[in-house]
């Protein structure tokens, strides 16, 4: 087990390194001169060169990379070209909104997907399965922004039950208000995650029910329900750990479209603003941040899996 963790950690470090290079290169290749955003009309050419020098932009690319990397490991992701705020502060500022939204959506999705997937898998080809299967097909096929628009139209515009957009009503500062604003975006995201999870759990339930040990459980007087919840469930839960690891990346950028439609002030809509404003340091920061989350998420998932699955030898 310790070896497994060590090996995975060792794999992660070069991966992080290369991802940082790609992020850096992506921004370097971008058209436009970042210095220009500091330029005011009455500046002289020497002033511009001075700014360029101060920013280190006159050095060769690889030197710039290592300077950038040095700042990076100290937690300095640079400054926004638009509002000149530290990038990391802006990301962290938006993190709770996104984490809250995605966290609740993923939690809701997992909680619903487990029973739905088990029921569908256990009743293969009968109506509960057909219904659940069809709904999950829709979930993986529907454009989320369209679903969001439909829900806004129905619940906010027609029925007036819920607010149209944003996270808070101006001047109101209550948890209930945030909750009300969060229902629709959370529902949209949860539906999308749910559909993926359900399909996964359903097919792994079907697979497990064909296993010998399940047939043998019946021969020992177990009922279908007991087999499902005492034996199959554990097999089905294990891969969910991996799915959750993958979802870590979505935590940040998966919500770009949804957050934009609902004007939810999270990292996704921050990314949108950054792209629209060509705010390269901010884009780079967000890209890197979510890449790191994904890599760390996968790492954690692998390690957790190692602890949860008895078949992986713990002694090693």
């Amino acid at each position, binding site marked *: 087990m310790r070896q497994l963790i060590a090996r995975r950690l060792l794999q992660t470090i070069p991966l992080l390194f290369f991802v940082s290079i790609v992020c850096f290169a992506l921004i370097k290749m971008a058209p436009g001169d970042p210095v220009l955003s500091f330029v005011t009309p009455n500046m002289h050419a020497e002033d511009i060169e001075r700014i360029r020098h101060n920013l280190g932009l006159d050095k060769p690319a690889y030197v710039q990379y290592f300077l950038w990397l040095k700042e990076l490991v100290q937690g300095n992701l640079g400054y926004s070209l638009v509002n000149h705020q530290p990038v990391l502060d802006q990301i962290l500022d938006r993190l709770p909104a996104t984490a809250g939204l995605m966290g609740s959506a993923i939690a809701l999705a997992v909680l619903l997907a487990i029973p739905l997937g088990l029921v569908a898998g256990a009743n293969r080809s009968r109506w509960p399965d057909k219904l659940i299967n069809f709904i999950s097909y*829709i979930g993986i*096929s529907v*454009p989320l922004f*369209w679903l969001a628009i439909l829900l806004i139209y129905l619940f906010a515009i027609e029925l007036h039950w819920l607010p149209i957009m944003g996270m808070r009503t101006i001047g109101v500062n209550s948890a209930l208000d945030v909750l009300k604003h969060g229902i629709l975006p959370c529902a949209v995201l949860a539906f999308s995650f749910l559909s993926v999870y359900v399909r996964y759990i359903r097919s792994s339930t079907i697979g497990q029910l064909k296993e010998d040990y399940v047939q043998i459980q019946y021969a020992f007087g177990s009922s279908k329900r007991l087999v499902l919840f005492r034996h199959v469930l554990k097999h089905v839960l294990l891969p969910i750990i991996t799915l959750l690891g993958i979802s870590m990346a979505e935590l*940040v950028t998966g919500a770009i479209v949804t957050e934009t*439609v609902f004007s939810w002030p999270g990292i996704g809509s921050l990314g949108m603003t950054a792209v629209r404003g*060509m705010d390269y340091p901010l884009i780079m920061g967000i890209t890197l941040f*979510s890449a790191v989350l994904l890599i760390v998420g996968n790492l954690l998932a692998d390690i957790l899996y190692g602890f949860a699955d008895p078949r992986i030898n713990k002694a090693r």
Partner: protein
Amino acid sequence: MNRTRWRNVGNELLANKMGIAAVAVLLILTLGAIFAFLSPHDPNELDVMRKLKPPGADHWFGTDDYGRDYFARALYGGRVSLMVGFSAMILATALGTLVGVVSGYFGGWVDNLLMRLLEIIMSIPSFLVMLLLSVFLKPGVGNVVVIIGLLMWMNLARIVRAETLAIKEREYVLYAKASGQGAFGIIGKHILPSLLPVIIVGATNNIGSAILMESSLSFLGFGVQAPNATWGSMLNSAQGYIVNAPYLALFPGALILLTVLSFNILGDILRVGFEPKLGKR
């Protein structure tokens, strides 16, 4: 790839009502896109007098904010959406197959290098990069295809690689090797044909994802630009009229859903058909 396999796929498809419906939907949409010019209305003909008319006998999907016939626009939009989806799929499938086969067949450092590269690309949030690239590159149908294609091949590459690893141990491949056939001859003659089912299934699912991605990009205003409309960009403009003319949002979205749904259903049926073990028993 023998005939029984194809017959299996055919049987699977015909036995499945959803499968028949999916094929029918795709056929109708494709024909609609191809023969869009038969529509009595010009998709770009402005008529301010008739703007935002709800659906009716003359304008089946109503008219948009410039009084253009929405049905004609949906047909032409479908043309671009389907084309982008199809072309991006071709690109992604070709790339994914190439990387997967090379990686799986040659193994060793080539495999190592390609798989590490894949890991790096997969670690970077693709949708954000897609947005970024579409800002860098000039927005246009061709660029959208390239952007989507370049960020979608990784899963297929993994699947193809795993499959290649299995196939290259089969006796006929070992025999071909022993009899002195070159690597590319073996790949072309023995490995690619055996990979076909995997590739077809992956490609089918990829069209669906490509259409979804294109629609998201276009919806956010980064995809295909005016005057070319796609279902996604139609939704972008419809967003502003959600209170007065909700049908403007309804139609393009429903068309995207139907298309992607059909491709996904088809993909699953193909998979079961090609590998009967997976499905019915």
